[in-house]
């Protein structure tokens, strides 16, 4: 019996946490559609979450595209199909690697920043102060971040797609002996709207996960500097895991399109 007790306790804690998260999410979604909406804060957050993530996402997309081209060349070479490099690069980037790389990089950058900022506001009573000043913290802090992440990540991933394909192009033309014009023509002929769309849909969901986990962990942090540190770590870890899990399920749903 003593062996079962800790297992049960962990399970109950897990259920309680999940319940709290779902309630938090519903409350956040409800506040998204009820006025007042702080447009200026949404704009600010779009700048912070989307625009300032461009360098990180751009760089990682470039190198990923390059590495992808090399790997596909090696693989294709084994059965004499080196020419598929542009096709597979654009497919891999738009459908899978663009959204996942952008999601994970933004999770590391933004979920951590959101959790640290809101967590510090929590432990210094700034969130309570908002309430006493007739301002709903959900609307003032959570809604702008959620909306900004869901809107800007798809834009970010379009840029990442282009840079990723460009990374593959640079490596293929410089060291794998591809002709530049042929490479671009093959890429453009092969890629479909559906490929790009499935990546955009996935990354919008990732954006929601990132902002939600950042806000949730920040809101529920306690106990000073250590608590904020734990909230930041949890935000990055949980959002990364949820992104990869959601990626699988979304891919299996969007697979046929």
């Amino acid at each position, binding site marked *: 019996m003593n062996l079962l007790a800790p297992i049960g306790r962990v399970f109950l804690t897990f259920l309680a946490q999940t319940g709290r998260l779902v309630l938090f999410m519903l409350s956040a979604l409800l506040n998204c559609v009820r006025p007042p909406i702080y447009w200026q804060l949404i704009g600010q957050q779009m700048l912070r979450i989307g625009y300032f993530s461009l360098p990180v996402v751009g760089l990682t997309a470039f190198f990923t595209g390059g590495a992808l081209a090399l790997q596909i060349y090696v693989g294709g070479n084994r059965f004499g199909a080196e020419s598929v490099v542009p096709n597979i690069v654009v497919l891999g980037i738009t459908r899978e690697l663009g959204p996942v790389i952008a999601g994970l990089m933004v999770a590391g950058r933004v979920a951590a920043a959101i959790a640290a900022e809101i967590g510090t506001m929590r432990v210094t*009573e700034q969130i309570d102060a908002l309430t006493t000043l007739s301002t709903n913290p959900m609307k003032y802090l959570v809604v702008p971040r959620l909306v900004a992440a869901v809107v800007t990540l798809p834009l970010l991933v379009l840029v990442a797609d282009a840079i990723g394909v460009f990374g593959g192009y640079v490596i293929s033309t410089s060291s794998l002996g591809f002709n530049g014009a042929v490479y671009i023509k093959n890429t453009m002929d092969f890629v479909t709207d559906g490929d790009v769309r499935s990546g955009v849909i996935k990354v919008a969901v990732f954006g929601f996960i990132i902002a939600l986990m950042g806000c949730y962990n920040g809101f529920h942090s306690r106990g000073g500097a250590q608590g904020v540190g734990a909230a930041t770590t949890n935000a990055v870890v949980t959002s990364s895991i949820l992104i990869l899990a959601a990626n699988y399920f979304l891919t299996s749903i969007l697979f046929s399109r």
Partner: protein
Amino acid sequence: MAKVELRGVRKRFGPKVVLDGIDLSIAPGESLVVIGGSGTGKSVMIKCVLGILRPDEGEIFVDGKDVTKLHGDAHDTVLRKFGMLFQGAALFDSLPVWENVAFGLIQGRGMARKQAKDIATEKLAKVGLGPEVAALWPSELSGGMQKRVGLARAIAADPEIIFFDEPTTGLDPIMADVINDLIVSTVKDLGVTTLSITHDMASARKISARIAMIHKGRIVWEGPTADIDNSGNPFVDQFIHGRAQGPIQMEIRS
């Protein structure tokens, strides 16, 4: 009718009982100070009145309305009667000083920024801060200055009731007395009802007309400030003289 009245308020966090049936009443225009050690439920009590926390049991009346049963807009209307000075000032560090002071006016009441800025400057002057402070950031200010800005923010929207959470904690004795004087003079100017919680006896004597002592989530004594030295209550005696021995034992866990 009492301005604020708590009846049998109970609040627990898990197995830990924080408020164990609080009964307290504050008359209009009265200055009440609640004293008590750390972790006796003082802050939780204030947060219950403000609706930041919801009590498990009991009723809290503000101007005769039970705020524990109010939601949404009706609750917001009651909340507008309150101003609050937080322990660490709780200034928004993403906003300059004047926007901190004007926050409740701009975000809470939709006032134009220009007009709100004028009011903020005027309130800052009330707490002894010149217009040059208005453009600074909270992180550039000392602890005492942050408390002053916090006070200006608490009075910005002309509240009827002001709560002070440990107004002098973390300040040197001189700055603490400056803040006490400011509290006394603003309260006199505005004619507001105040509820303060503190464990600083010098501050409690100065800013209160009546004192109540909280211990283990209950009010164990209340009376006029003048009577505090001969209360005949062992809890109060131990607390005001700061003795380690007595009926109050140190709590190890918060």
